[in-house]
């Protein structure tokens, strides 16, 4: 017996070592949380490798900065001029976009939406990778001591990078969106189709769970849907590259991430997300009738009705001084689109949010009965906005109930603010 053990000693040890590792693997797979032993090995490995990586990255960055900031300044003046021009162009763009954003906020407030804001981020430098083709993860130089926690979103200006998987003292491991175990709730920008963005074994990224009968154009942007409760809604994930029918009911959609995942240097860790209700502008508190009155030149300014004699001069009444004999008064028939002096009853119930002083609204300015109230079904209490931005804002809303034309419209006073 002893001779047999001695003869196959190496083989027995090999089997024993392999068995222990298989046992360890099985335990990790079985448990949801990480065991202390595997955590310890990870901490040792990261502690051994991370300082070297940090030092090398520091040397590399410092020498790069020295070269670029002090020696290699060719073309900086021209670049500066170009950037100034770009700032001017962007300022103009910003004005337009802030108007759109204001409008969207008003609509969201009207619907009682809660918005998610990235209120705090932490910049971090990428110091290393997992070094394996099968595991797409990177290491950043911020950890527990910088307030980093697991499941925090990691982004760049270009788009989403991934999420924090493990946190150590001064480093963290980030699972990239291209990893096969990663999954991000995604939505297509224009078609508003929802799916799950997953990494593939080959390192590509695909959008899953989009039904095969849907139309997905190549080049459409893919955004975060916010459904995973990790990534705030509306962050850029990537662009649709190819769409092919899958083997099952779903489409096979390949997505090119907007963030360059193979050349990451600095990233932002979203450390705090606020969720608060959208607050509308001050103009919302104005009554719709007042705003209409400002807009419609043909509508006389509202007068305080004389309760004593009951002769409040509403446009529906005959002008003062003129005497109307019984049988002589014929109310004027108003055709749609015709300018009249009598405000439509529906106009009294216009929502305040869709109308701002000075806002161009041709149909409303006409003062006709065809003010855009019930021309076509609109989501919830939101009236149709003639501007393109308004329509996009309503589209962004998560499918509120659509009342039919026959349904009565809610008055602004009834809207929950």
């Amino acid at each position, binding site marked *: 017996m002893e001779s047999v053990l001695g003869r196959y000693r190496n083989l027995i040890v090999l089997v024993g070592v392999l068995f222990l590792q298989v046992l360890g693997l099985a335990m990790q797979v079985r448990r949801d949380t990480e065991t202390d032993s*595997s955590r310890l090995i990870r901490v040792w490995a990261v502690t051994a*490798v991370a300082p070297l990586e940090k030092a090398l990255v520091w040397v590399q960055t410092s020498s790069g900065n020295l070269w670029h900031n002090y020696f290699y300044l060719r073309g900086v003046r021209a670049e500066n001029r170009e950037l100034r021009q770009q700032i001017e162009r962007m300022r103009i763009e910003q004005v337009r976009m802030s108007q759109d954003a204001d409008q969207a906020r008003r609509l969201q407030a009207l619907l009682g939406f809660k918005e998610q804001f990235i209120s705090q981020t932490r910049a971090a430098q990428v110091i290393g990778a997992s*070094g394996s083709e099968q595991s797409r993860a990177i290491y950043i130089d911020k950890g527990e001591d910088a307030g980093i926690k697991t499941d925090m979103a990691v982004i760049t200006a270009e788009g989403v990078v991934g999420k924090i998987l493990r946190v150590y003292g001064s480093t963290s491991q980030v699972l990239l969106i291209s990893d096969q175990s990663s999954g991000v709730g995604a939505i297509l920008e224009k078609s508003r189709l929802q799916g799950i963005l997953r990494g593939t074994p080959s390192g590509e990224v695909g959008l899953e769970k989009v039904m095969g009968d849907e139309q997905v154009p190549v080049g459409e942007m893919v955004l975060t849907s916010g459904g995973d409760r990790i990534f705030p809604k509306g962050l850029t994930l990537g662009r649709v590259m190819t769409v092919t029918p899958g083997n099952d009911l779903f489409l096979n959609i390949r997505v090119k991430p907007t963030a360059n995942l193979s050349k990451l240097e600095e990233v932002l860790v979203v450390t705090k997300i606020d969720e608060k209700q959208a607050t509308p502008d001050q103009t919302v508190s104005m009554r719709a009738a007042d705003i209409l009155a400002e807009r419609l030149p043909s509508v006389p300014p509202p007068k305080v009705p004389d309760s004593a004699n009951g002769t409040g001069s509403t446009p529906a009444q005959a002008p003062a001084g003129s005497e109307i004999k019984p049988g002589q008064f014929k109310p004027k028939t108003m055709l749609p689109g015709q300018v009249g002096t009598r405000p439509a009853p529906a106009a009294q119930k216009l929502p305040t949010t869709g109308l701002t002083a000075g806002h161009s609204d041709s149909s409303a300015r006409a003062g006709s009965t065809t003010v855009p109230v019930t021309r076509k079904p609109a989501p919830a209490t939101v009236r149709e906005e003639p501007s393109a931005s308004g329509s996009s804002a309503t589209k962004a809303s998560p499918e509120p109930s659509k009342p039919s034309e026959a349904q009565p419209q809610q008055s602004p006073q009834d809207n929950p603010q």
Partner: protein
Amino acid sequence: MAITYTSGEQVEVYRFSLPATILIPLAAIFLQAWLPRQWHFFSIFDLPLLVTISFAMARRSQMAGLFTGALIGLFQDALTAGPIGLYGIAKTVVGFGASSLGIKIDAENAGARLLLTLVFFVVHEVVYFTVGRGLVSLPMQWSWSHELWSAVANALLGIALYTLLDRLKQRA
């Protein structure tokens, strides 16, 4: 490309100094984690595997080979996002196999090393894939063309690396 079959007494047995035994695998793991960030194509190489093969073949001890492979593999696993043990098991097998072959054959020339590294790279990938798919249910894909190209690239890099490591080994 001569692989000479020699008896256990005829082949040279080498050892590495303690600093080299610790620092070389650590450096390999560090470079494996750091270089793909600079050059993405570098992720096809497996420096810790090459170090495992080199150590195992030089020492010609099955016990040393399997433990070196297991430790290097587990350390490499610890840096990935996946479970610990996949690289550990694969490199244990390779370490044992390389040291077993090291006893039988004299793999001191470049041709023999190229061939052995090619074979052990494929063995490593097969074990990794089998354990990953079979035990952990990872959605892995096997591509022969990719594996063979990677094997050739690793074998070529291995020849250069073994030449460097030859300078650090001492006759036991």
